């Protein structure tokens, strides 16, 4: 055999091998459909309801005004828009034909029953930490709900991310989380908290910064991220901040209450906290214990020292705007504060935060009341305040709270967030 022939054969062999490897990487078998299983113990269904609540499944899998868990919520990612899918037990459009084995594979490996790759916006990197019992319970709960016929809305992902097999490469790079081993040095409550935070609660999905491929950055777990224009603050060093969180405050905050010294959950955290409010308080206490044990990050960004001093003119405008637009609820004499005991605006975490993002977002969008849920409501001001007025207002409020640390880049932040606000 000539050299040339031998090389050709080797190249062909390599090519075939490469194709086979790629195929092995990107191909997953379908799992045979079954008749929808019905016979579950009520106790198991009830336990499963709590797993589904702890996992915030409904927050993404229910669109506003839509049927519970029937999907259709748009999730805007840097790679295009995804629509959450129907996880009711409808045979055609939901997961009614999925055996437990398929559900487990989806939750742990991100593979659908028919073998296609699910996008990692579905947080299987976290859900894979759930133990067998919790997964079986969640499955029992989901299978026992009312089936809703609602076909999936087609995703609008940009090339090349519209090619699902590429997720195999993503998984190869980023799907490494291993089951949590309880730490004997820590209390059972701490271990339970870690299991809920890292697993079902998938707090890192928003609170960990993402890399260019949309995966949580290793080594920066829970160090803070951005979601839908809102800052998801760092959860590190909560107990050692300038205004430290106490266990009782954090539990109340996580359960959608208004907390003295910190405020209340708004933006994307609002529905999450409303779900957590349905969990047993002991579980949320466990989450708080774990979160409060996390030490401050060595990478925590240094507070920006700026010398920007608000001009007298803009601060008088800011004060006028505050009196007219905000003082009815947030002024010192407002009944909401004197009777209802709401905290001063200057003490809330969004006004104390190093960046103005969440303050601006809250003023633009307000806090929409949730029908059927108690809780604070704030009107949106996007239509009534111009960018310049909003900047003056933000500078005024921040000046009351932290006069030596004005917010940097107010105007550009407002412009950017205004463009995102529907």
């Amino acid at each position: 055999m000539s050299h040339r022939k031998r090389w050709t054969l080797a190249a062909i062999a390599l090519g075939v091998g490469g194709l086979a490897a790629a195929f092995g990487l990107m191909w997953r078998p379908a799992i045979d459909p079954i008749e929808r299983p019905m016979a579950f113990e009520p106790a198991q269904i009830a336990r499963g309801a709590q797993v589904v609540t702890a996992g915030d499944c409904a927050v993404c899998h229910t669109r506003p005004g839509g049927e519970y868990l029937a999907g259709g919520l748009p999730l805007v990612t840097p790679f295009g828009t995804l629509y959450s899918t129907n996880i009711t037990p409808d045979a055609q459009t939901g997961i009614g034909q999925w055996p437990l084995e398929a559900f487990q594979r989806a939750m742990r490996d991100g593979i659908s029953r028919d073998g296609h790759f699910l996008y990692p916006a579905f947080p299987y990197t976290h859900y894979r930490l759930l133990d067998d019992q919790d997964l079986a319970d969640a499955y029992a709960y989901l299978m026992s709900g009312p089936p809703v016929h609602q076909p999936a809305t087609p995703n609008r992902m940009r090339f090349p991310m519209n090619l699902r097999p590429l997720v195999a490469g993503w998984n190869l790079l980023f799907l490494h989380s291993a089951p949590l081993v309880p730490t004997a040095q820590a209390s059972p409550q701490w271990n339970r908290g870690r299991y809920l935070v890292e697993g079902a609660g998938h707090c890192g999905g928003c609170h960990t910064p993402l890399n260019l491929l949309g995966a949580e950055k290793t080594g920066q777990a829970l160090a803070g991220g951005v979601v839908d224009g809102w800052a998801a603050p760092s959860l590190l060093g909560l107990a050692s901040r300038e205004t430290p969180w106490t266990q009782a405050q954090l539990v109340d905050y996580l359960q959608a209450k208004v907390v003295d010294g910190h405020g209340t959950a708004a933006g994307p955290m609002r529905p999450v906290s409303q779900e957590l409010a349905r969990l047993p308080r002991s579980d949320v206490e466990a989450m708080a214990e774990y979160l409060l044990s996390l030490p401050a990050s060595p990478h925590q960004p240094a507070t920006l020292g700026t010398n920007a001093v608000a001009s007298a003119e803009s601060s008088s405008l800011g004060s006028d705007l505050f009196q007219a637009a905000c003082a009815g609820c947030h002024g010192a004499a407002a009944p909401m504060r004197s009777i209802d005991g709401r905290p001063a605006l200057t003490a809330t975490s969004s006004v104390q935060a190093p960046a103005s993002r969440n303050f601006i977002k809250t003023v633009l969008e307000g806090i929409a009341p949730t029908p059927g849920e108690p809780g604070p409501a704030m009107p949106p001001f996007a239509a009534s305040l111009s960018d310049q007025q909003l900047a003056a207002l933000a500078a005024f409020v921040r000046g009351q709270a932290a006069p030596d640390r004005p917010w940097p880049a107010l105007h550009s932040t407002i412009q950017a967030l205004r463009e995102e606000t529907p």
Partner: protein
Amino acid sequence: MSNVNLTVNGKLHSLDIDPDMPLLYALRNHLELNGAKYGCGLGQCGACTVIVDDQPVFACVTPCAGMQGRHVRTVESLGTPEQPGPLQQAFIDTQAAQCGYCIAGMIMRAQALLEHNPQPDAATIRAHMASNLCRCGTHLRIIEAITRVVENGGLHVVHN
């Protein structure tokens, strides 16, 4: 006190008022436009709703200081008792008011919707109107009134 310029219903007014005054007070106490009502003063009930440029806002939490160069419209701009506008006529036809306190705000919020979207579906109307409350409970008739205007072809169609 200082001079605040307000453009309301197409007319420019120069008022000598505190710039920290909410728009509602200027409309009612200084311009005698009493359609918009004071309900809660907290932006929670919608009785004070007016349109600024093309958006509905709560006048009770909208600063006069922010209105320079912007166009405020109140319910008085939509018609007169003799010649009510399409939404006003529909509210009369369906007897959507009981005590009537919320109605000016309801009409202005509905007006802003129909100017943007002449053919909203029932769910869109409900979602849009959700921030305005009626203590008498005439929401069903209010929705009916708005739906009639939609079914009759929109705001520009006048039925006599």
